[in-house]
Structures are given as structure tokens and as C-alpha cells.
């Protein structure tokens, strides 16, 4: 079931100069100030799409941290997949989400027959790099919640797109769920080896393998003594 190729807020918006200026001149320096932004395995980041970045999620900082990993010329191709119910909640947030952050909205409440992954799949078709938080929501920062199956379904539908796991350490201390004041604390993004969908693989197995990679990255992250 294919949705029409152009939906509101989907197509060419992220390529605007305004978003580019916002992300490189404002968001990236702010991320550096707040997190120090240490990166392990930067060479494993994809330079071109299609690719899927799958990261743990504990803070609104996460998307900005992931976006700050990419050089300006790649940035136009990078799209965070974000919950429509939250990021399109009112006109102001929606404008910022679509025009400055350049999200690809995803519905978290599935209506019967609706293909919620269609916009993400079309982004891959356009050769974009999509940022996905497979937990589906922000966690407490203590480990990871259950991973939803969307990444496996996208990988199956678009096997040319490698899935790159990234563990973000420390974002929950900078800006935990529910907090309003960010506090500068060093964070580390650990980029893992890409996972590639193989013919005949099953989706739960793929999701489990992704979880395993993320947990291995978490284990190698610098210690965080926060109690």
C-alpha cells in the first residue's frame, strides 16, 4: 500500500538554507558546548545514503547530537524520524521540527491499514540517511527499552541501506526527560559496525542483533557514575 509520494512536510524541505544555517551555526556549537561531543568510530559514519542510523534515546539532545556528527554537505541528506503526535503537536513546534530540524514525521498510533513507515522508506528511496530511535520514545537513560520492529522492516524493504548502530552516552544527564534546564556534561557517541539485511533473515533476529550491537557499544562507553 503506497501513499502518494508528496505528503505535507515530507519532500524537499530539509534542503533549505535556513535549516543548514540553524544546524551548523547554532545547533552544532550548542551541542559542543553542552556535551563536548566525543565520538568513537567516526570513520564508520555513512557519507552517503541510503542508510539507517539506529540510536538509543534518552533526551531531546539525542537528535541534535546525531545531526552534529555529519559534515555540512552531508547534512542536507540527513533526516531524523520523529513522532508526529509530539513534534507536529502545535503549529510552532511543527514549523521548527519540519523546517529547522527537518524531521520525517512518523505516526505512533497505527490506524488499520496505514503504512506508518512509508515516509521513512521514501526517504531511503531518495538516498537519504535517516536517524531512528528504535525504542520509540525517550527512556530514563538507564539501559535501553524494548526495540520496536520498524528498523528491521525498513532494512528488509530496503536492503541496500546499512543499519549503523550508535550508542549515545550521557545525554540523559544534560537534559533528562521532563527537565527544562540543560546542564553541560560530557557525552560520547559510539558508532558501531553496520548491520546489513541478508536474504532469508527474520525480523526479530535482526532486531535482536541490533540490540546486541548497541549493548556492546554501551559496554565500551566511558563510565558514568550517576546515582
Amino acid at each position: 500500500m503506497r501513499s502518494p509520494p508528496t505528503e505535507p512536510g515530507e519532500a524537499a524541505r530539509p534542503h533549505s538554507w535556513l535549516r543548514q544555517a540553524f544546524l551548523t551555526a547554532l545547533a552544532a556549537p550548542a551541542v559542543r558546548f553542552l556535551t563536548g561531543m566525543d565520538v568513537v568510530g567516526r570513520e564508520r559514519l555513512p557519507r552517503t545514503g541510503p542508510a539507517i542510523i539506529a540510536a538509543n534515546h534518552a533526551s531531546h539532545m539525542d537528535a541534535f547530537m546525531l545531526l552534529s556528527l555529519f559534515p555540512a554537505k552531508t547534512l542536507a541528506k540527513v533526516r531524523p524520524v520523529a513522532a508526529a503526535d509530539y513534534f507536529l503537536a502545535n503549529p510552532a513546534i511543527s514549523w521548527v521540527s519540519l523546517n529547522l530540524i527537518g524531521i520525517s514525521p512518523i505516526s505512533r498510533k497505527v490506524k488499520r491499514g496505514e503504512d506508518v513507515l512509508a515516509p521513512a522508506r521514501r526517504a531511503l528511496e531518495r538516498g537519504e540517511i535517516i536517524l531512528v530511535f528504535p525504542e520509540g520514545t525517550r527512556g530514563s537513560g538507564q539501559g535501553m527499552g524494548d526495540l520496536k520492529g520498524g528498523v528491521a522492516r525498513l532494512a528488509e524493504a530496503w536492503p541496500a541501506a546499512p543499519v549503523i548502530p550508535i550508542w549515545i552516552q550521557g545525554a540523559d544527564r544534560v537534559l533528562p526527560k521532563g527537565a527544562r534546564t540543560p546542564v553541560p556534561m560530557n557525552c560520547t557517541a559510539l558508532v558501531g559496525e553496520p548491520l546489513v539485511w541478508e536474504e532469508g533473515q527474520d525480523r526479530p533476529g535482526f532486531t535482536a542483533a541490533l540490540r546486541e550491537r548497541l549493548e556492546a557499544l554501551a559496554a565500551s562507553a566511558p563510565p558514568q557514575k550517576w546515582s
Partner: protein
Amino acid sequence: MSDLLTAGLGEVRPPLLWGFAGLAVVLVVASLAVLFLQKTKPDRDWTELRLRVQSWWGMIAVVALALALGWAAITVLFAAVSFVALREILSLAPLRREDRLIVLWAYLTVPLTYGLVALDQYRIYLVAIPVWFFLVTPFLMAIAGQTRAYLATVATITWAVIVCVFNLAVLPLLMKVPAEEAPAGAAGLVFLLLLTTEANDVFQFLCGKAFGRRKILPTVSPNKTWEGFVGGWILTAAAFWLLAPVFTPLSVWQAAVMAALLPVAGFAGDVTMSAVKRDLGVKDTSRLIPGHGGLLDRIDSLTFTAPLFFHLVAYYALTPY
């Protein structure tokens, strides 16, 4: 206020130019040595060494530029250094969730301290952290209501602020010394402090590599040896004593006292931070400086040598302090 307005290009005197020219020669030799090693022993990985030398180029360039621009630039540079170092240590140290806003409060000591220095409030600077921050912070943490690990956390935060902020703010204080009080100007004092501190690190490392046999503190810093410490001490003390008449107003004997103490302070800072890192279970405090580790890894000895250098020179020879 008048010097706030005239803060602009500082005066760069010949000894400073010679100093940086000398450093450039050392770096060119080091860079060529790395190229030579890569050519002759390509089977070994020289990336770490190459990055380390490249980072030295960057750090020395930044310091040279700030010294040329004058005290305002040095104030901004070391305020940034204090902030990043404090962020490194507070991110690794054991803290409680309730301390999140206390950490934000601790960062405020950076603009506060450097602001007092910029405004020539030396006497207030002297008490702002050791008296007032030490009183207010435990009180704020008591109000926050979490008593678990309270005392240990108070100690962690206050010590981090002393080391990273209070101790490093003497660099802009030195930079504001009137030009006629030091033979190569204020910038010469800062230059000599930074040069001998970092040279001590390098000399101790190289002497340890070349002659190291007997471990000096195996439980804290297993790679440090007596030979490295003594060799570094001799070379640094000699270098300091020879350069002191060019850059400082110290007499021969005063310079000898400083020459004897400064390498010991550098070693102490290095070992103290090693104990902290060992306790926290990390090798480096971050990955900010390629080939070196974190900023705190690079400036650990400076957090001890800077107050020693400043207070001893001030005691012997500086009228404003």
C-alpha cells in the same frame, strides 16, 4: 576600567618571539621525526604520535595568538579551558541526580572568577571560591535535600572548582602584571610558566622512556619512574633557571628556589590527577585533544604549577599582588 578599554594587541617583546621560534624549530624536528619513522618503520602504527605532534602545533598556535592579543584574549582562553576541564571532571566524578543544578552552579564560578580577575578585584577573587563558594554550595546541596553521599559530593565539587577554576585563573592575573615589572612583559611570565610546565611533562616522559627502571608510584601511575622524575627535574630546573633572567624579575637565588620547586609541583599535579583517574576507572578524561586525551590530561600539572609560580613570583617581585 581603563585597561579594559585598552585591551587589544599586547606588546610582543623579542624574547617571546625567540621563544616561539624555538618551539617552532622543536615542532618541525618532531614532525620530521614522525615522517622519518613512518617511512623507515611502516609496520608500526605511528598515528598516535603523529596526532600528538599535530595537536602540539595547534595548542602552541592558540597560546601564541592569545599572548599576542593581550590579557583579554588570555582571560577568554583560560576561562574556556577552566570550563572544559571542569566539565570533564564533573562528568566523570560520582554525582547524584539531585546535583544536576549544583553542577550548573559550579560552572557559574568560571564567569565569576574570570570576571573578578578582569575587573582587577584580586582580593575578592582570593576569597570568592575558597570562602564563599565553599559555604554556599554545601548549603544549596542541603536545601536540595539529598543526604546520601552528601559529604563526598561536596568535596568532589568544591575540589574540582579549586583545581579547574581558581588555580587556572592566576594565568590572566599574571597577564595583567604591568609591563615594567617583568623583563619580557606580562606575556613573558605566562610563556615561561606554560613552557616549563609542559617541558617538565615531556622531559619526565622522555627520561622515563630512556632510563626508567624503578617505579615511583606503582599503585597510582605504573608508568612513572624515579629516573623519569629525577631526569625531568634536572632538565626543567636547569631550563627554568637559565631562562628566568630573560622572562622574570626574580634574582638568581629566587629563581633557584622556583626552579627547584616547579618540576615537583608539575609531578604532583600529574600524579594527583592520575589517582583521580584511577579511582574513576578511566585512562583519559575525554577525547578532546587528538593524541593527548582530554584537556585535563594536558593541563593536570599546570593546575599545580600555576598557583606555585604565581604566588612565589608575586611574593618576591610583583607589586600589584
